[in-house]
């Protein structure tokens, strides 16, 4: 189908890092079933490094592909680097998304931020609240 790039279709058909981490150090869930997208990210963190990451997504092809790509981009990275991941980087790594699907990459960025925030909260690590503003808003349709 010409709707998506080959990269998007590859990550949609063969998503990387699908699943659940039972003893995750940080879990982030964003989106709303009413809007047709929910992403859940699980992080396993050791010494502030993301040792493992898994995701579950309810959503369209680009939502699944964005989750898959975002997990690839942060795996093995320091959590502070993972926080730098932007939706633009996810979109570029996927060789672009249709304009009306850009919100899927935004959701992926926010899911990761939300998981890192959960890790910080659980471990009593201090952070700048404004960096996580989007996670607090109770995300919905774009």
């Amino acid at each position, binding site marked *: *189908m010409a709707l998506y790039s080959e990269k998007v*279709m590859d990550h*949609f*058909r063969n*998503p990387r890092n*699908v699943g*659940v981490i039972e003893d995750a150090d940080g879990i982030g*869930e964003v989106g709303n*079933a*009413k*809007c*047709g*997208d*929910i*992403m*859940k990210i699980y992080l396993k963190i050791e010494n502030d490094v993301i040792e493992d990451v898994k995701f*579950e*997504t*309810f*959503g*369209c*092809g680009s*939502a*699944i592909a964005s989750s898959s790509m975002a997990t690839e981009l942060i795996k093995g990275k320091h959590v502070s680097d993972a926080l730098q991941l932007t939706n633009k980087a996810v979109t570029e790594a996927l060789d672009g998304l249709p304009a*009306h699907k850009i*919100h899927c990459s935004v959701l992926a960025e926010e899911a990761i931020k939300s998981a890192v925030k959960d890790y910080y909260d659980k471990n009593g690590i201090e952070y700048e609240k404004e960096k996580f503003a989007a996670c607090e808003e109770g995300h919905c*349709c*774009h």
Partner: protein
Amino acid sequence: MKVYVDNAATTKMSKVAINAMLPYMDKVYGNPSSLHSVGQEAAENLNVARQTIADILGCEAREITFTSGGSEADNQAIVSAARFGERKGKKHIISTAFEHHAVLHTLAKLEKEGFEVTLLDVGEKGLVTAKQVAENIRPDTCLVTIMYANNEIGTIQPISEIGEVCKERGVIFHTDAVQAVGHIHINVKEQNIDMLSLSAHKFHGPKGIGVLYSRKGIMLTNIIEGGAQERGKRAGTENIPAIMGMVAALKDANDHIDDNGKKLTAMRDRLIEGLLEIPHSILNGDGEKRLPGNVNLCFEGVEGESLLLLLDDKGVYASSGSACTSGSLDPSHVLLAIGRPHEVAHGSLRLSLSEENTSEEVEYIIKAVKEVVEYLRGISPVWRDLQNGKREYVIG
């Protein structure tokens, strides 16, 4: 296996239709408005075509206007009836919440001009009643426009009963019959239909051609201005090859309407039965009063687009809602109209059969959909929450 089950979006042209078109491209190629013999030969053929369509619909040839398709016919029907009513000070229109956008958007435009529109509730089954229509007709109602069969969920409305109510009350009755013509028996006079829209590519004819039937006495308002074609009510040189293809396709569809209907109904019911074996799935729209080829279901915990893309990988070409709304993020207005909540409406699948499909294909589709739904549920956090009891099932 490659299985095309998106016939409500469009159909493959039949050989009958293609062959009927060919002579009108290089042999009878004249402009019917030309006075010379070449043009007049085309004009004569056009007359025969118009009469054939009229005979099939049960009306007179002069009540047939050729249009570019269903959307144009819907636009012209509604605008004409509105202008006709407006002259008598009648500016109220009755329709339903789940019409095609060709109807809904035209009505929205008229609302901005000061018309008042009542959209009838279609209930969980996707059906309106003649009683609802009767209760909502007012002295200033100028038009009732209700689709014959819904394009997404295939439910067939009680058109004859509605036609009777409209006739008694002296209100123009238009029906968008794009999904119905060629698939179920229609007779505009017997059913008291004043205006009807149809489109050729829904019954194996060519794209870009359709018909507006309009009972004599209803003054049509031009949507396209120009020459005096179609009694001056629709300008533009007639698309004769397409008209010939449409007539041949409609005749063919009508000649086999009962046999095709039986075959399709059997395949449809087997598909529904097989797919409802999937836990937490539900049929959208009434199971009986529906087009012979329409299947539409929702699967909880699954999103429609990813379902379609993975079915495409398996060679099953289906749709989620109507083709016209793909690219939109909003769930189907039809599914919302029958009361499906947003989160469930996102997980819909429409399979629309043609008589070319086979029972082997039906079994293949059932297997493919089961596999894809199971896979997508496996990676869905919504499904996990439903299974863990953290979220309540909407579909029992």
